[in-house]
């Protein structure tokens, strides 16, 4: 976009991983056509770390993220939250939000936001049932607008116009709106997909800082991105998916783009 390679560098300290927040065992997920996209994936995600999921687009990351968020059914394997298996009845977006799993979807236009809605209405998607937006049968419009105003202030969404149509915000500001909605609820686990796709440079930096701040606050973050630079800049630990399987796991400090690139093609230099 800027005609040169942009160096994404972020000041981030050491990670202090704590307890296992999320564990995945032998996960199998199919796409809409029934093709197996995630084929026996297992990993753990700890509090206070960012686990990056790298891979060439279309190697199962999207399906993995959707399955974890409860949008896509599991074809096999199990998900454990805080060491407890997630029962099938709770494997849906609503129940997962209630137990503190936030989800920033990969595609804000198609999934994360409702473009014809006012920004304040998009800013409560998924939490619209909560009593903060009105205690009785009817919504309290003032509370909805005030809540959106607070989120926009906290994430510097411009313009600060809760009544403006969601579609009329720039990509970066739309993305900040999604992040504000998810992060302001203080989830203990966050599933983050393509957080900076189609976002301007200024917003990228802002979003990255917020993601790292979440980690430093002891949250467990799973980051799916097809931007290798982003994975390298943010992650503490990286798993690489190729053809629906994990082809390798690396600590961020002792890997590089070439190493990851080979893993993305299914070649593990170190194993060889």
């Amino acid at each position, binding site marked *: 976009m800027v005609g040169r390679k942009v160096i994404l560098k972020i000041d981030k300290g050491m990670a202090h991983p704590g307890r296992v927040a999320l564990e995945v065992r032998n996960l199998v997920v199919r796409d809409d056509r029934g093709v197996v996209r995630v084929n026996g994936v297992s990993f753990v995600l700890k509090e206070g770390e960012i686990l990056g999921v790298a891979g060439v687009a279309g190697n199962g990351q999207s399906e993995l993220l959707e399955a974890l968020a409860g949008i896509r059914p599991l074809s096999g394997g199990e998900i454990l939250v805080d060491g407890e298996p997630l029962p099938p009845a709770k494997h849906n977006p609503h129940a997962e939000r209630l137990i503190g799993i936030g989800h920033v979807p990969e595609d804000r236009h198609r999934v*994360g936001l*409702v473009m014809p809605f006012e920004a304040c209405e998009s800013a409560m*998607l998924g939490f619209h049932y909560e009593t903060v937006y009105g205690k009785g*049968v009817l919504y309290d419009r003032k509370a909805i607008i005030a809540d959106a105003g607070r989120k926009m202030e906290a994430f510097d969404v411009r313009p600060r116009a809760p009544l403006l149509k969601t579609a009329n915000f720039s990509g970066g500001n739309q993305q900040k709106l999604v992040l504000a909605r998810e992060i302001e609820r203080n989830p203990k686990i966050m599933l983050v997909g393509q957080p900076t796709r189609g976002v301007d440079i200024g917003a990228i930096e802002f979003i990255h800082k917020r993601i790292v701040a979440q980690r430093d606050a002891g949250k467990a973050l799973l980051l799916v991105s097809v931007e290798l630079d982003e994975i390298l800049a943010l992650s503490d630990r990286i798993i690489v998916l190729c053809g629906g399987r994990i082809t390798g796991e690396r600590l961020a400090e002792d890997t590089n783009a070439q190493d990851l690139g080979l893993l993305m093609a299914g070649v593990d230099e170190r194993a060889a």
Partner: protein
Amino acid sequence: MSSPLKPLPAWADVALIPLINVAAAFVISGFVVLAIGENPLEAVQILITGALGDLEGIGFTLYYATSFIFTGLAVAICFHAGLFNIGVEGQAYLAGLGAALAALYLGFLPGYSLVVVAIAAAALFGAAFAAIPGYLQAKRDSHIVITTIMFNYIASALMGYLLVDVLRVPGQMNAETPGFSKYAAVPQFHELLAPLGIQWPVTPFNLSFLLALAAALAVWLLIWRTRLGYEIRTVGANATAAIYGGISPARITIITTLLSGALAGGLAVNVILGQEHRLILEFTGGFGFVGIAVALMGRAHPVGIILAAILFGVLYQGGDELAFDKPKISRDMIVVIQGLVVLFAGALEHMFRRPVAVLLARRTTQPPI
């Protein structure tokens, strides 16, 4: 990708564009009248005088408008969920059965509680008949446009059978039920106003009109001020986002079609309980389909629907007068106008949008963004 033009201001979007669309429909209707060999201006004058020229005309106009408000709301609520309910006609027809069964067989209920129960029965039967296409859409992915069209024929056949073979008074030639008791009637305004010393000509205009206005308010509150309405609009605008937001599109589809069918029942309340006081064949008279035009013209907003319903009330009442005064112009002229409104307000909704945007952009100096 995006148009370089800035979006239309709200007033133009809400008022100007629909007005232009409707005006275009009327201009072309004028040409049709001209082609028939009559003077369009004279026709308009007869039409308006017939509909609004005296209290009797106004009574009939508002009676028709009441039906159109209900059917327009029924179609509109489905629009918000991204569904196109073409079965309002059949749902209203079945609602008439519910109203009639309650009125005929629950006569033991005290006083005017009977009419309240009959209204509830109309809503219930309308909703129940809409439930089947709603369920098929939600669970079996059978397109609601197709199923509701087919259900109109099922309703027609079923009601024909019931009225001819089951509910008809023995020895009576007309396919209709016996008359209802007076406690199953929604009071008409001329009856209500007479004790107050106000002379209102005898028209079918009845209290259902107030029920229709209340329904419009309720629909507005539901759609824009409740959680269910939020979920309905989310499913209609972006079903994928709805799933992400923990909303089940299948559940919303069923609930919305139920509400739509219940609203369709209002047509039966107005016609069967408010005017006919017995169940007759084909009492819906195509008013369920007019609801589609009303909802499109009113842009699925209750206020717009009330205005559009009154306009169609004027067309129906004035059209009768016109057909009487000018035999060359048949009642079908109203269907032509209706079709043109659907064409311009529905199919060609955005035709005038761009020219208007260009015009407005030229007039207002734009501050740099």
